[in-house]
């Protein structure tokens, strides 16, 4: 079983809808330890994503994803812009010229997205950032694909792992981003960026 560019577009639009519907919650989360604008920034980034995905509807998967990433970069998105932007750009790089993806392609796409994003930051799992949702999300996706599950099944596992990863951030002390100066006072609330990352994965899964 493979999935097409059209399905990828549906996944992109679905995750944009999911994220936009949570923008107020994300800003509230960000205000606990940051500057209270993560939802606003994500909403602006998702406007850019939707536009790019629609403009590039007839292009290969990689080109569409690259355009999404570039438009996020252009949306002046604080920390979110370079991080989310490079996730999409990395996913695009892995799928350049492709019009459909196998399970292996699909997992590799997320892996390259994660790798590109991680070039932008030294944050590791446990540092209370979006890495805490991204890493389990991508690793679980790879494991489920390798275990022979279908793409929709693997993506559902992945979304569940991302959500669990985000939820755990409440126990962590922030080491990156605006929250790091809070020290121990950053323990308690969940991280805004990890939460939005988990919604991104949930949106992808919901479309399959």
């Amino acid at each position: 079983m493979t999935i097409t560019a059209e399905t990828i577009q549906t996944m992109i639009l679905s995750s944009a809808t999911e994220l936009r519907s949570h923008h107020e919650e994300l800003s509230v989360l960000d205000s606990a330890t940051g500057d209270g604008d993560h939802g606003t920034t994500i909403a602006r980034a998702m406007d850019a994503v939707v536009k790019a995905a629609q403009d590039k509807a007839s292009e290969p998967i990689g080109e569409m994803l690259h355009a999404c990433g570039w438009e996020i970069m252009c949306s002046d998105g604080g920390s979110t812009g370079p991080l989310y932007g490079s996730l999409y750009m990395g996913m695009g790089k892995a799928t350049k010229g492709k019009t459909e993806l196998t399970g292996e392609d699909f997992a590799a796409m997320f892996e390259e997205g994660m790798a590109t994003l991680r070039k932008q930051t030294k944050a590791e799992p446990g540092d209370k950032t979006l890495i805490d949702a991204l890493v389990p999300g991508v690793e679980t996706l790879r494991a489920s694909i390798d275990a022979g599950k279908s793409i929709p099944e693997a993506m559902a596992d992945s979304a569940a792992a991302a959500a669990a990863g985000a939820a755990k951030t409440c126990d962590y002390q922030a080491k990156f981003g605006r929250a790091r100066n809070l020290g121990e006072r950053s323990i308690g609330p969940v991280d805004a960026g990890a939460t939005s990352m988990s919604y991104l994965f949930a949106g992808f899964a919901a479309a399959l």
Partner: protein
Amino acid sequence: MAMKKFMNDPADLTPELLEGYVAAYPSKVKLVNGKLVCRAEEKSADKVALVTLGGAGHEPALSGFVGEGMLDISVVGDIFAAPGPPNVYQALKMAAEKHVGVLFIILNHAGDVMSANMAMDMLENDGLADKVKIINTHEDIAPGVDTPIEDRRGLVGCVGVYKVAGAAAEAGKSLDEVFAVADKFNNQMATLAVALKTATHPSTGGAIFELAADEMEIGMGQHGEAGTGRSAMLSADKTAEVMATQLIKAVGATEGDSVLVMINGAGATTLMEMFIVFRGIKTYLDTLGIKIGASCVGEYLTVQEMGGFQMFIAKLDDELQAAWDAPADTAYMTVR
């Protein structure tokens, strides 16, 4: 509660404020491509250009310091959000193609640094990265002076860097020389912020932090990122002394030294209060035998209508004193 601010659609805040700013100061600044604030009249190509980047919502920073003797280009993001790498790249490219060199000044905040790094990667592909030298400001001493510099925020000190580096650039110094003066200043400056009252994020209408009615917080960041110094309200004199003590220690000033003192209002704190605080600092420095070689009190980098201020101290030598005193002609800092 409804947000009480003069605005139209919150989504248009940044473009509208930039349009208003350049319309009010057309002889000093112009807008290129919507988000780059550039000098109305460009500096000659044989001089080093100064480029910086940062979110909006901190007016007059950063774009209020574009002009003769200070910045050449300020790349503006959105409210409290760093500009994306493409715009930063465009500004650096413009400056590097035209000028003999570019000093690129980055305040240490995650978004700004990531954007700047990606923009530099792009510039590398053009073979222009060699013309650029980077100053990363990280003078917030709230987390402690031993904290690794990547964990220390850039606060109002950037304005001082623009001023001293801008003077060197205007004087026709080489990129290495401009960098050297900026780097020296950057390494002997320190800032500490104190917050009394929260501000409303103008895009969301939400408060950016909470403080009890009788609490203040020393070490608050410039977006309401909390510090570690909550305490009961102190008097102006006590606040001045507590903060100045830490800053003087951080910059290592001792008897006979000369310092620059800047008091930067966060938004709602009055000049009246800042003058009273300045008086407290002066009294304290007098007891230490430290001279105030230069000073200014006002709003340079604000956080909406937050109550509080940033206290900035830098050690001065003759070169830095002269650079600080050199002429400048920007909308929000003019020196004759």
